[in-house]
């Protein structure tokens, strides 16, 4: 254990830190304030990070978690407050300064450079920091590949040349998330911050991440998670910090508390894990999918959906569930099979076909497929129904747009200061609600929700689930494509499990055990039955 120079030092520091509080923490922030125009996003937050410890920063959407992270990583300056690294006060922290101090961050938006290769995204930072930000340096290509390969291995991504030289923009979102994680652990970090790193990951990848975190901790590296997933917090353990409205309201050791305690502090109210499903489903079939297929994605997919029914679709990343969702929305059309809605056979070639047939869609990746980030909230909400909003002169009616947006913002309890602000000024969870709102504007008969609560806090999840249930009670058919198993169990009538592009099992969701569902997802033999 003490053959490599730096490691013993770290682990020693970690031991001392846990023995006594006299030792200086790695990072200390005090009295941080941050305002965005009228929004007081952080109101005097203190935080203390010790080496070799794990921290979970939690709180409702918009409580200021990401803002705090950006300040610690030098991406945004604080308006007030003090930052100390290794006990030394830091007057102004810029991104390079944070990296030099060993603070690595996986941002909520991943902050990958879309046009650079996987290798470059992972390993360039190391050389930039070594050059102290000076750019007149030649690249060390050998080291670039070496660092990237090592990091890719630890997140279980391929290390072949073809993958390494792929532009990040061409990768699916889950892979991008893993690349961002690989970047953070590529060099000798002292603190790794991950803002909702598991949002797009499946359970297997999450397990792998937890293993990585364990290794980091044993080397004396501190890890700060920002998360909404209470189950993950409970299973990883460590220290938790809960924020509400820009202030720290509670902190402590995860082991000393229950899940319900945490969610109580986050929301200020009690939320029980309930099964939301109440509606009786209709007798007639609303949607019948027969033998649907898309090359290299899925095949032989048949299922039906009744009026008012909620069907879940789950599976691992390569199961074809994501592609199925996109095919139902006309984003990546199926190349065979039939989709019949209300007795009418549909040909969904483009997203607009699905919109015209009143199939609503909430995409999984709100950053790249979903929202016009720099455009106003209102325009984002009404983006799919512009034709309906025209007045008699063919102009988009401002008043009707506004009414529509205001109604949905109220229904979905989206926290907005002004409908004309750009969507990117909203917190992650509120952006997600804008996306759901947009899907609802077309009055869908069938609503395809692809990861509807990714990055959404427990309180808002509750809200979104209630909305989904209400919609289904009005006769809407809902398809939830997700890898959040509790979410499916709480909301669905039936759950379809896909593996390697095929449906392998269909469960009745009532009284179904999460573990049964999970086993069906990961099972290796494909001798599944269908009901």
């Amino acid at each position, binding site marked *: 254990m003490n053959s490599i120079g730096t490691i013993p030092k770290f682990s020693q520091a970690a031991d001392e830190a846990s023995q006594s509080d006299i030792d200086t923490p790695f990072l200390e922030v005090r009295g941080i304030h941050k305002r965005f125009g009228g929004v007081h996003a952080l109101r005097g937050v203190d935080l203390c990070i010790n080496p070799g410890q794990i921290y979970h920063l939690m709180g409702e959407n918009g409580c200021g978690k990401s803002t705090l992270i950006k300040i610690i*990583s030098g*991406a945004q300056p604080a308006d007030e407050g003090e930052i100390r690294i290794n006990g030394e006060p830091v007057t102004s922290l*810029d*991104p*390079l300064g944070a*990296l030099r101090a060993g603070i690595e961050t996986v*941002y909520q938006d991943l*902050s*990958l*450079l*879309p*046009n*650079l290769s996987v290798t*470059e995204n992972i390993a*360039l*930072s190391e*050389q*930039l*920091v070594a*050059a102290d*930000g*000076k*750019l*007149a*340096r*030649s*690249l060390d*290509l050998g080291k670039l590949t070496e660092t990237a390969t090592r990091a890719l291995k630890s997140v*279980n*991504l*391929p290390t072949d040349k*073809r*993958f390494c030289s*792929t532009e990040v*923009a*061409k*990768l*699916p979102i*889950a*892979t991008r998330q893993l690349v961002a994680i690989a970047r953070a652990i590529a060099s000798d970090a002292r603190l790794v911050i991950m803002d909702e790193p598991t949002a797009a990951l*499946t359970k*297997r*990848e999450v397990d792998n991440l937890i293993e990585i975190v364990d290794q980091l901790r044993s080397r004396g590296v501190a890890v700060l998670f920002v998360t909404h997933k209470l189950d993950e917090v409970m299973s990883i353990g460590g220290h938790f910090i809960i924020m509400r409205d820009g202030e720290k309201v509670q902190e402590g050791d995860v082991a000393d508390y229950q899940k319900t305690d945490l969610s109580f502090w986050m929301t200020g109210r009690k939320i029980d894990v309930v099964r939301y499903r109440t509606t009786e489903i209709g007798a007639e079939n609303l949607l019948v999918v027969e033998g649907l297929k898309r*090359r*290299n*994605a899925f095949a032989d997919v048949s299922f039906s959906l009744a009026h008012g029914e909620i069907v879940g679709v789950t599976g*691992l*990343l*390569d199961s074809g569930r994501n592609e199925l969702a996109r095919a139902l929305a006309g984003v990546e059309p199926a190349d065979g099979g039939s989709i019949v809605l209300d007795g009418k056979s549909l040909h969904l070639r483009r997203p607009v076909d699905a919109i015209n047939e009143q199939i609503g869609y909430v995409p999984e990746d709100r950053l790249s497929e979903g929202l016009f980030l720099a455009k106003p909230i209102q325009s984002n909400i009404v983006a799919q129904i512009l034709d309906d909003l025209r007045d008699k002169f063919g102009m988009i009616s401002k008043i009707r747009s506004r009414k529509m947006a205001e109604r949905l913002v109220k229904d979905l309890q989206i926290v907005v200061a002004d409908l004309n602000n750009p969507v990117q000024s909203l917190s992650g969870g509120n952006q997600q609600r804008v996306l759901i709102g947009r899907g609802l504007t077309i009055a869908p008969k069938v609503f395809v929700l692809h990861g509807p609560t990714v990055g959404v806090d427990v309180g808002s999840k509750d809200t979104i689930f209630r909305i989904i249930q209400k919609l289904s009670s009005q006769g809407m058919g809902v398809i939830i494509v997700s890898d959040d198993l509790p979410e499916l169990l709480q909301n669905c009538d039936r759950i379809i499990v896909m593996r390697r592009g095929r449906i392998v099992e269909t469960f009745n969701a009532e009284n179904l055990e999460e573990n049964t569902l999970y086993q069906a997802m990961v099972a290796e033999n494909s001798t599944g039955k269908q009901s």
Partner: protein
Amino acid sequence: MSDFTLDGINGGKGESQISRIASWMIRYPPIFTLLLIVIVCVVIGTISPEFWQISNIFDIARASVVTGLFGLGFLVVLAAGGIDMSFAAIAGLMMYWITTAVAAYAPWMPIPAIILLAALGGMVIGIGNGLLVHALKAPAMIVTIGTQYVIHGFLLTFIGTELFVNIPLSMENFGKVELMRVGAQSGSIAILPAYVLVLVVAAVVTWWILNRTLMGRAIFAVGGSADIAERLGYDHRKVQMFVFAYAGLLAGIAGVIHVASNRLANPFDLSGNELNVIAAVVLGGARITGGGGTVIGAVLGVILITLIDNVLILAGIPSTWQTFVIGCFIILAGALFANSSNR
């Protein structure tokens, strides 16, 4: 193993031959440019066999030098997400200053010193561009169109559009140095001037900067997303200064080469060349929105444009059709490469 397979993303096996070639070209845009060059050569060569002469190739090479230098500069600025519309004006200004100043005060000055002087001068104006773009936070296109007009206005006011007649001897001689001389059957002689090496050196240096230095990667990083690059510690300001300075430097050199090769020159000769250069770089596969492009692509793009400019006439195609053909190629390139940016 992981859940991830590349086949799922890139379409995988079983594609038709055509779509394979198309996706190959999307991944390596210079292939497309090369293909167009081959097509143009074959078509012209079939219509008029005298196209296949060494002198024609030398002509193309000679005519590519100035456009090529501009193209390389433009590529670098474009890669960083900027646009430079002032290179021809910078070249014109340097052409005027250096030629008249050297002729009047230092006619003994050797050519390397003259080129160095022009490069430095162009660089200073380029830095001015960079400072303005950064300080005003204005779109680079607007700022550099402004610079272009200011320089033109200055030149018009002080010298008008007269030709230089008094050219320093070292410049004149430099234009005459031969790299290669080939005698054709017809008895005429084809000469490849040595200054084509300037373009070769510039291309190699640009390639090295873009692909083998941190600055090069920072240029693409900023061009891909300036916000994200800054968050990751790249110095946006430094990158901006560098790309405009570099484009200015190449423009300055291009100005001197233009005088040396033509012996008769006027500072406005190169103006109006801007769109041609942009077309060349775009045909070479660079992304007009920034963050993409290769040196080999830009050079091939320049060769393609020069080819069309110079030899269409051989095939009996009226020169008015040159612009038409270039336009069609650009639209074709646009259609092909537009699909490369999304998934």
